[in-house]
């Protein structure tokens, strides 16, 4: 049924936010600090601006094909064979990102909470919840994401406690690291925005007018940008330059330094909640990969492809989990992310504008 598959504006916003906020944000200040130093938060705002432009491009592209999802758009613009090829690449990209999420997730979890639990058990837990939710239709996934979004509030409320002892001089003078470094930091921050391409897949299933979509997507992007830069800003003024270089997950170290009357180590609680945020990102990638797969192999149902995708991610994550491999994997994912998230959609938009391609006939998207 088509109707059951539609999501509201609010659900779209939470869907986008939940897909984007995942593994990366815990180590975001550390990663960007390598380049932009005390101006990392400006870098993030820059990335936010850039992503806003990208998002508008996405919407322009989607509006030209209002009832098709991304893989159908690929086919309409590039033709059948090339379209299928690209869909195949996208499937690979989604699986790669999904696996990266898994690998990083278990890596951080093992370091912070469960050093003795076997690697594959944690993987298995994550994969099984991924399957459990991702086989459902879009509206149910969106319901789950909405509930998961309450966790973000927790982070936003707890992080400002750091203001008790911060040193604003750590980020002074503003702009000291130079424009080039800020831009460099901004490009490296794109990994944190990865997942924004979900807009292309959701677009035909959102119950909203064009204007409302722009608003919803802008709101989601604004939220993400502010959320990231807020957390990064707090980390920057809390830890000194030398400290932050040693802390790969500054957000968690920040939380670890707090203590309350009833909870001595809030970071343990928040890492647990962070699992949900990772889970939602992983579910999104499973969903995307299975959707792409179902478009490639028409005979298979999306449900069975969810199992297949989860299986592939699981095995990938089992074999690539060394320290060096994780560094490599993150690098690859960032670069392929740039390609699949930015280059190809923009390229598609230019093509469709040049050749005046629009949706022909009533080819409806059938996400389920």
């Amino acid at each position: 049924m088509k109707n059951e598959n539609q999501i509201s504006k609010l659900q779209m916003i939470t869907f986008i936010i939940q897909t984007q906020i995942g593994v990366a944000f815990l180590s975001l200040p550390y990663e960007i600090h390598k380049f932009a130093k005390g101006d990392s938060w400006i870098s993030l705002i820059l990335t936010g601006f850039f992503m806003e432009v990208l998002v508008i491009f996405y919407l322009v592209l989607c509006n030209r094909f209002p009832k098709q999802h991304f893989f159908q758009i690929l086919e309409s613009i590039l033709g059948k064979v090339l379209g299928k090829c690209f869909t195949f690449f996208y499937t690979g990209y989604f699986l790669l990102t999904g696996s990266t999420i898994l690998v990083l997730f278990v890596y951080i979890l093992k370091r912070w909470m469960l050093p003795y639990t076997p690697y594959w058990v944690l993987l298995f837990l994550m994969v099984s919840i991924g399957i459990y939710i991702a086989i459902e239709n879009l509206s149910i996934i969106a319901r789950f994401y909405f509930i998961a979004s309450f966790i973000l509030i927790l982070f936003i409320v707890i992080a400002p406690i750091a203001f008790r002892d911060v040193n604003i001089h750590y980020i002074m003078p503003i702009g000291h690291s130079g424009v080039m470094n800020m831009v460099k930091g901004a490009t490296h921050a794109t990994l944190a925005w990865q997942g924004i391409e979900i807009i292309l897949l959701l677009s035909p299933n959102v119950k909203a007018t064009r204007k409302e979509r722009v608003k919803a997507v802008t709101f989601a992007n604004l939220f993400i940008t502010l959320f990231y830069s807020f957390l990064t800003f707090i980390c920057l003024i809390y830890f000194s330059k030398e400290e932050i270089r040693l802390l790969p997950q500054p957000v968690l170290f920040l939380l670890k330094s707090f203590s309350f009357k009833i909870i001595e180590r809030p970071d343990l609680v928040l890492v647990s909640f962070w699992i949900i945020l990772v889970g939602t990102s992983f579910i999104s990638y499973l969903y995307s990969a299975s959707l792409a797969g179902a478009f490639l192999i028409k005979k298979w149902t999306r449900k069975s492809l969810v199992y297949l995708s989860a299986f592939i991610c699981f095995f990938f994550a089992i074999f690539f989990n060394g320290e060096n491999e994780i560094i490599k994997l993150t690098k690859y994912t960032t670069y392929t992310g740039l390609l699949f998230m930015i280059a190809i959609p923009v390229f598609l938009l230019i093509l469709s504008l040049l050749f005046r391609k629009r949706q022909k006939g009533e080819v409806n998207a059938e996400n389920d």
Partner: protein
Amino acid sequence: MKQPAFPNDKNEQSTANKISTFDTRVEFIKSSFGHAEDLLMTPIIYKEEKGVIFYLATLSDSEKIQNSILFPLIKYHSLDFGDIPYTVGVQSKLNLNDSINALLQGNSVVIIQGSEDIFSFNTVKDLSRSPKEPDSEKTVRGSHIGFVESLSTNLGFIRQSIESTHLKIIYHQAGQYTNTKIAIVYIDGIANPNLVRRVEERIQTLFTDMIFSPGYLEELVEDTPLSPFPHILYTERPDRTIAQLMEGRIALMSEGSSDVLILPVSFFSFFQTTDDYNSRIITGSFFRFLRVSSFLISLLLPCLYIAIIAFHFEIIPNEILVPVKNSVENIPFPPLIEAVIMAFTIELIREAGIRLPTPIGQTIGIVGGLIIGDAIVAAGLVSNIMVIVIALTAISSFTIASYEMSNTVRILTFPLMVSAASFGFVGIIFSLMFIVGHLCKLESLGTPYFTPIAPFNLQGMKDAIVRFPIWMLKDRPKELLVRNKKRLNQPRRWEKNEK
């Protein structure tokens, strides 16, 4: 005596000119009740003319009809209802609308061919079999009446409270041998007709030998029987049933059961009680909040304790660390075993308490609660704190308004405890994700179960975790897709007038 047969061929021919008015009147009454199936008509012969007695079988006493209408008619052939008020409560010269009201109150209405007069007789059934307050749903304020085991009496309670022709009752029979009467009750003009149709279809396609309890019916009718969460609300309270009907839900009643099944319901319906609306706004909200949080407490407390003791000792602040350590130190078992022993004991006491007659049940409570609890700590098998934790869990699970939901919670604590014992907080979070995911998936008759949280609905939140003032609950629940969305039009209108 000659049995009054209807329609009589001779009469039909001789009074052909008046048939239309008589028939239209009969038809009018029938159609104003929407051809309700509990509206019965008995043909009579009155002064050589045919007539008909209308009455609602659910509200009228057939013995009274026999005594006050039929016997006099048979005895005195020239009896005139209008002349002599020969029985209590005869009203004559009613118009059609009055007669419908009279019927709704339980009176019998007599319509006679060739006569403009409509008579009504007081034949209200004495709804006795002393209905008492249901044990499982006690309230402090409000009505203290409960359903009984007779379907028609129960329907009578509802008819009594909703004096409207919009109240619709559809009878079905199920069970090949028992032929149990099942009534689908809803309010026409409020309930979504699609939902009614779906319920009717499900009832019609029941092919079983018997329907012996509401649980039977529930399992055969509901969407996901294997889910731990109940999606049909049981109630023994007429006032609660009426409130649910007025929200646009459907009630399923069956003969021989004092429980009414309400569907479709959402998760938060199980936390509402009549008391919430009978107490003041702030207290009512507080009680509702207490009940919702008791769900979380009983779900999470034992597993959090296990996770902290087994995995995350560092999370306890120093001040509490010492008493916890002292209590746990000499216990031979891991916390999971401790918790399972205690939780299982509590379940045993509960089950024993239900099965035994009340005085013995209390003894069991004392033996179980006090003696076992005290001795098990003294023996050093279970820690003090674990006893506190499990006792708190049990108490908060019993706070939940619905018996089914409180059982659900206690069942769910077991897998949560196991996952907490194997993975600590991580295990709890994963289990919670499964539970919440399951709640998001559940649908009761096509309406989302976990609304108003997911899908989010701000209007619905007014009556979920806290209770907003009644004048602010203007709309009926959105997820039911009711036909008449507004519940209150101008509540507290007097405020404007008094200004």
